[in-house]
């Protein structure tokens, strides 16, 4: 079988379920439920820090997860402080935060703020434990934090109820190392599927409160907040494509033994 034929079969197995809705069942896992419950139990007005620790290449997985979590936060009337610890996550994070905030009609500066990017993530995570304004004297729009209403009541991690790291690499581990271990912060993680298995030891040790793993995590979260989005739509394609891969692996093995 030529590789071009395999690519065509994979493309069709993704495209057809996207065009024709199949509505395949999807169960909510305990780690996703844990993130939902952690956010749901927060009092209205509590502050959630969302860190966009990812690059542009992982957008198809990152965006549905970030959107679902932010929708839940804004729906619960929580205050959101956004920031980025990887440069490429800066503009993407700002865009996702702004678009989701617009859906709920919440105000910049009052209900949410985006602080922008800081390099040297160890120093940034540790520094915010002392004083966020020292790490981010100004927000993404170059407005001094002292002039932003939401930031007047927030000094450091003591004023933040939950940190959510939206990541495509091992940045959540740095959050565990510095924010969780040293400042006893609660941490939830939304990560690409490829990284998910690396974080299960931290999840079972209680160092992470919950975990969203890739498109499936996003789809589960969309089910919980009852707002279907890119995640749920993509999961049909994901399932059919996985089936196609399994069939191709079986066909490849059968072909190999027949040739032998």
């Amino acid at each position, binding site marked *: 079988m030529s*590789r*071009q034929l395999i*690519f065509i079969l*994979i*493309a069709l197995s*993704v*495209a057809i379920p*996207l*065009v024709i809705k199949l509505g395949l069942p999807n169960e909510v896992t305990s780690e996703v439920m844990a993130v939902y419950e952690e956010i749901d139990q927060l009092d209205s007005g509590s502050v959630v820090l969302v860190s966009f620790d990812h690059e*542009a*290449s*992982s*957008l*198809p*997985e990152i*965006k549905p997860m970030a959107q679902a979590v932010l929708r839940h936060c804004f729906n619960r009337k929580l205050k959101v402080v956004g920031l980025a610890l990887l*440069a*490429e996550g*800066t*503009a993407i994070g700002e865009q996702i935060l702004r678009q989701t905030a617009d859906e709920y009609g919440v105000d910049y500066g009052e209900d949410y703020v985006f602080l*922008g*990017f*800081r*390099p040297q993530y*160890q120093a940034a995570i*540790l520094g915010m434990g002392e004083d966020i304004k020292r790490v981010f*004297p*100004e927000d993404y729009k170059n407005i001094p934090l002292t002039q932003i209403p939401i930031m007047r009541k927030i000094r450091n991690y003591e004023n933040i109820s939950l940190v959510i790291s939206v990541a495509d690499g091992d940045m959540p*581990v740095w959050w*565990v*190392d*510095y924010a*969780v*271990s*040293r400042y006893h912060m609660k941490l939830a993680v939304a990560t*690409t*599927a*490829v990284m*998910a*298995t690396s974080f299960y*030891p931290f999840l*079972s*040790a*209680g*160092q992470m409160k919950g975990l969203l*793993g*890739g*498109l*499936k995590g996003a789809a589960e979260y969309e089910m919980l907040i009852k707002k279907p989005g*890119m995640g749920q*739509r*993509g999961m049909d*394609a*994901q399932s059919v*494509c*996985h089936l196609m*891969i399994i069939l191709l692996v079986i066909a490849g093995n059968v072909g190999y033994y027949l040739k032998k």
Partner: protein
Amino acid sequence: MHTGTLIAAFLTLCIFSFLYKDNPFYKFAEHLLVGVSVGYVLVIALNTTLMPKLLNPVFKEGRFDYIIPGILGLFMLLRFFPKYAWLSRISIALIIGAGAGVAIPATLQAKIFAQMQATMINFASVDGIIVFAGIATTLAYFFFSKEHKGWFGTSARVGTWFLMIFFGATFGYTVMSRISLLIGRMQFLLGDFLHVIK
């Protein structure tokens, strides 16, 4: 149709064209991606680091003590000049020293003590026993001072099963992750570009 959508669709198709074979369209899109990424990161670094952390404090606020870290930063660039490359070692030594000082206690606490504690607490449950068996047998596999024979060999072999399960799960997640990227592009092409998805 929005111009940005057209450009994005064209570049997506350029990249996908590699699946047939390498071609100038793919090369163009690849080089454009590298150039744009580097340019973007440079601008972000300039706006969020160099300006607020060095140039503004020195030139606008008169904080001349910031010149010292600035000079240390410049030393790093001297690695490109063999005659003065030795000066970069001062900056590197500072980074390694401070970095290790900050990282070692945090890593010990987060990755050794907390993980061991979690394993001990869960030892009373079935999950805990499985975790303990996984740790003990996997460590046995990586213990090379005793020949893998007899009961020790058996436990090392069980350790490899745990490792294979981990690799299988990780590979499964990796496939899922890569397919998600394809789904994202397909959603864009069929939705935003062709409007086939309702």
